[in-house]
């Protein structure tokens, strides 16, 4: 018999039930049609769930319990860093003066918020070795787009038409996608045998048509680019700019500064670097930091200081424009600010501990998996499951699913693309040795099972709320929404004549 499904909120619905109490309008009664012509009024109510307050609370509480979360256990996800989220940050972001501040509040009445952003900008400049920061981008990829538009404006302003962007083959998928959204053509260059960008190939590709190199450093293999100075020289001598994808900035805080390595512009993912939550995939914030030469092109508004006042400056004739409606994901930036104020000079220890933890895990796991790029790693490392695949027919996906049975979230898999059967692991700085040992123990046990009982790995998971899901069917016959039961007077919810 088919096991019972966990109910949808719609399946708790009983006509007439409601979870909230409504105020009366409390103003003289006027027929609605006298205010708004009847032809504009909704004829068919939206079939939203009709549930009691208890139904609502229990439903969403139970849903939260069906998640693996950073507050529940260890997340080995590489690249998609899940960092410690101090709870005090949540208190700061919910202070009424922040949380209830309207985005159109006159600047004279929003000085506290503007000062916070201005001070955060100073801190990020100090940490990155850059000169200015825009807070508008809502996430890392949004930051990439913003930065590339500034790069394009920079070259255009010099009368140069440079339409190519170089990315290494280990890059995040957002890099080429952002370049395309900015109208650039993407040139991919390979990595060398040690996992660095291949400088010979870069030299061959870097000509007068190149606008920028987009580089992640440490790169997505968790390796520091050993020839970063030479790379910057090659790029700059061709007239192009150096762009840093700051996804892995948390490995080098207080150790080395991108601005000193030759980068002209970078984005930071505050959820990967400065402890803001990333539950379920956002919200994030993707501040972009730049060297002085790019300042004219910053999105508007910037937060500028005018004596002892802070202002929103829209007067930037060469700006690329606005990339979102208001001045950024402020509530997220408050959390990052709180973290930086708490940690300050200790940031270097944050990075050192992240690197130490990663190397400890790597040392424990390397006898059991292949390591295609055999170097001391930074904050993350990439193993390969190719041995398990070749010898026992167990894929990396199976290994990841089996880890769930041992109570751990799966690592990032099949990324970066240049590693066959990739298993990418990032422990972060906050995990204890006991947690790292428990995780290593589980992964080693799975590696042993690949030899002794490969079927149990291939058919995993066995102990999760749902077992392996049919993703092919999901894509072939998309069911992306609940629909009201038919036949119902409420209709299908679909209308309009162009289906």
């Amino acid at each position: 018999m088919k096991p019972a499904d966990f109910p949808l909120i719609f399946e708790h619905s009983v006509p007439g039930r409601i979870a909230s109490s409504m105020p009366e309008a409390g103003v003289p009664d006027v027929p609605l049609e006298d205010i708004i012509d009847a032809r504009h009024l909704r004829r068919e109510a939206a079939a939203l769930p009709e549930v009691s307050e208890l139904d609502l609370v229990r439903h969403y509480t139970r849903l939260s319990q069906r998640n693996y979360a950073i507050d529940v256990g260890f997340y080995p996800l590489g690249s998609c860093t899940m960092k410690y989220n101090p709870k005090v940050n949540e208190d700061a972001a919910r202070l009424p003066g922040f949380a209830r501040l309207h985005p159109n509040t006159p600047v004279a009445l929003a000085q506290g918020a503007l000062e916070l952003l201005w001070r955060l900008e100073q801190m990020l400049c100090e940490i990155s070795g850059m000169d200015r920061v825009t807070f508008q981008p809502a996430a890392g990829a949004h930051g990439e787009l913003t930065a590339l538009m500034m790069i394009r404006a920079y070259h255009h302003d010099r009368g140069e038409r440079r339409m190519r962007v170089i990315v290494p083959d280990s890059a995040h998928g957002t890099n080429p996608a952002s370049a395309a959204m900015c109208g650039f053509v993407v040139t991919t260059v390979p990595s060398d045998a040690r996992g660095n960008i291949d400088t010979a190939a870069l030299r061959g590709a870097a000509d007068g048509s190149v606008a920028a190199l987009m580089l992640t450093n440490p790169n997505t293999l968790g390796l520091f680019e050993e020839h970063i100075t030479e790379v910057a020289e090659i790029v700059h001598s061709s007239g192009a700019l150096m762009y840093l994808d700051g996804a892995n900035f948390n490995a080098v805080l207080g150790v080395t500064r991108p601005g000193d390595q030759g980068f002209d512009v970078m984005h930071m993912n505050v959820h990967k670097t400065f402890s803001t939550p990333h539950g379920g995939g956002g919200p994030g914030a993707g501040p972009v930091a730049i060297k002085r030469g790019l300042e004219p092109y910053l999105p508007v508004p910037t937060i500028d200081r005018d004596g002892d006042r802070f202002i929103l400056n829209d007067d930037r004739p060469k700006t690329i424009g606005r990339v979102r409606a208001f001045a950024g994901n402020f509530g997220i930036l408050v959390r990052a600010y709180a973290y930086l104020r708490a940690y300050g000079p200790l940031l270097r220890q944050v990075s050192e501990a992240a690197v130490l933890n990663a190397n400890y895990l790597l040392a424990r796991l390397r006898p059991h998996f292949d390591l295609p790029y055999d170097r001391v790693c930074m904050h993350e490392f990439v193993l390969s499951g190719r041995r398990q695949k070749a010898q026992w027919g167990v894929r990396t996906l199976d290994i990841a699913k089996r880890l769930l049975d041992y109570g751990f979230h799966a690592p990032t898999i099949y990324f970066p693309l240049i590693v066959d059967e990739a298993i990418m692991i990032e422990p972060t700085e906050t995990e204890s040795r006991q947690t790292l040992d428990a995780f290593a123990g589980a992964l080693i046990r799975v590696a042993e099972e690949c030899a002794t009982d490969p079927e149990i790995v291939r058919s995993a998971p066995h102990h999760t709320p749902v077992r392996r899901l049919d993703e092919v069917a999901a894509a072939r016959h998309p069911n992306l929404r609940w629909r009201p039961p038919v036949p119902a007077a409420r209709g299908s919810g679909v209308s309009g004549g162009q289906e």
Partner: protein
Amino acid sequence: MQGELQATYEYQSMLCELTAMDVANASMYDGASALGEAAVMARDLAGRDQVVISAAVHPHARDVLRTYTQHLGITIVEVPSQAGRTAPDAVRAAIGPATAAVIVQSPNVFGCIEEGPALAKAAHDAGALLVVSIADPVSLGLLQPPGAYGADIVTGEGQPLGNHLSFGGPYLGMLATRAAFVRRMPGRLVGVTTDRDGRRGFVLTLQTREQHIRREKATSNICTNEALNALAAGIYMAALGREGIRRVAEVCVRRAHYARQRLCAIPGVRAAFDAPTFHEFVLRLPVAPDDLNTRLAERGILGGLALGRWYPELADGWLVCITEARSRAQIDALVTAVAEAVRA
């Protein structure tokens, strides 16, 4: 992650119900960037490279649209508003053979409700898509949803669905469309499937549209979205439910109407436009709007938005918003304060 994925699927479903569209994604960054992405989507769907946008779409959203499309060969034609609304004839005149989409906002930046069906017809007659931007989704508790009058893509700002104002973010961009267009949508989608025991489960699906698979050929570069805000929006919609969302919208309309009547009774103050409004309306003032706001601030009231910065012809224009969170006593206090300030 089954809990989060299910909550996202429920959010997608509720947003479809509210907008009367077939499919909604898991969220975009905000309403303005969602509109920028919708223009790119329309270009790809129509195979044409021009969009016609009403000047009554919020200026920030038009700014972001320009930013998003500036390097993609998409040209933008703006249609001026007439008496606070977008005239279908003016839209018809602006449309050409290269027009991929007509973009309007309803209620628009002046709070006025647009003639959706006529605008849809103007777009569709020319083979263009209709993109409707929604500044406050609560309005759809009471107003005809875009799907009911032929919208092809709906975007909007989801913040009013239970999210803090928080000085501009984090918010959530809404994006919904017709089933036939789903494979050109940007952003994450959660779908239903089954596990090997036949039990219902949820997965991220149709990922071949996305950057981590398609890289430079993806429909968008978006990766991180606004999941937690979408969760809050879903809970908000479920807390109100079928009847509650209509009630909130109705309280907004009635209180805004009351405020508008009372403010317009002040000598020298008049409504800028006659068109029906939801919970925002524009007044013309006998004093400079910024000066009035300064006076009101002294009394602890954050006044309306001075529109002259974006609309020079509305140098005396003052955009007022009254939601269900403003009591009659607060409205009366506002009226008293405005009356005294414009008399002084």
